[in-house]
């Protein structure tokens, strides 16, 4: 009678050791894959985010500078040309526009008869590490060559945008 009860107890549904080892191995492999997905996904997110900031800020800076230069009538010689950090002082139809670097961002200061407006053109996680303006004087007018370098400080990665714009207002 004792033997019969013993048999009943040991007949319960359990897991054999071999079963457990196999399942453990499979679980380890699966979790490796899942952790890998998480890590690669995070890295991808960081890279895409930095690329997006480079692209967005680079285009913003280039478009704003070239648009302002194009409609300007004169590039003042009190600007800082040929060196970093550059300062570009333009005479526009409404007053003066100045591009310079302030706290790692490209800053535009517009002075008109009604007052002065200041604002940053770039932002986000990238900073302006270099801004160089060159003044080109032709026999018919002026042009500005711009080179702006954006840097992501955490990885020291830099990307440079170049543009040259003729002052249509100085022809």
């Amino acid at each position: 009678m004792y033997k019969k009860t013993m048999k009943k107890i040991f007949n319960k549904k359990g897991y054999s050791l071999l079963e457990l080892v196999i399942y453990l191995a499979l679980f380890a492999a699966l979790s490796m894959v899942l952790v890998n997905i998480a890590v690669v996904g995070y890295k991808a997110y960081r890279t895409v985010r930095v690329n997006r900031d480079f692209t967005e800020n680079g285009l913003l800076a280039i478009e704003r500078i070239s648009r302002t230069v194009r409609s300007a009538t004169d590039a003042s010689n009190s600007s800082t040309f040929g060196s970093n950090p550059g300062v570009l002082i333009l005479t526009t139809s409404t007053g003066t526009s100045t591009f310079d670097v302030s706290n790692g961002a490209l800053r535009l200061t517009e002075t008109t008869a009604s007052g002065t407006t200041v604002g940053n053109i770039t932002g986000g996680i990238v900073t302006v590490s270099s801004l160089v303006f060159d003044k080109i004087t032709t026999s018919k007018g002026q042009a500005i060559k711009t080179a702006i370098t954006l840097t992501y400080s955490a990885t020291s990665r830099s990307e440079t945008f170049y543009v040259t714009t003729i002052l249509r207002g100085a022809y």
Partner: protein
Amino acid sequence: MNKLLNTNKAFSLVEVIVAAAIVLLIGVAFTGSLSKTISLSNRALRTAQSTALLEEGAEAVKTIRDNNWATIAGLTVGTTYYLSYNTTTDIWSLTTTPSVIDNIFTRTIVLSSVNRNATDDIAVSGTLDPKTKLVTVTTTFTSDGMTVTKSLPFYISDIFN
């Protein structure tokens, strides 16, 4: 009674292995698509830089024209030229010496001749106009092993005469 006791709600080993394999496959496919995302965002950045470089190329050629049309007229049609900037004299010039920008971009300038028809419109065939040229600025860079090319064609004329 025996049949009822034999049906247990458990998974056979084969089922578990198959399920694990499917999850692994999905994981591999996902990370593969992530690498494509990264390379695409990189390509977008390079394209943005190319756009600015193309605009610079066009304006630089115009400054050369502004200084003297003869410089443009003296160039050989169909030859690949490269832009070179002299930081001392602050002048853009065209040279046949190849150059690479930031070890990433190659920017070339190629000129084509322009014909005008009887009504002085630019046409495929007609009289050759020596005072007008078709300039094509091209930027190339590599992205994900492929070479990407962006072009900007524009007309340039001797407008100051």
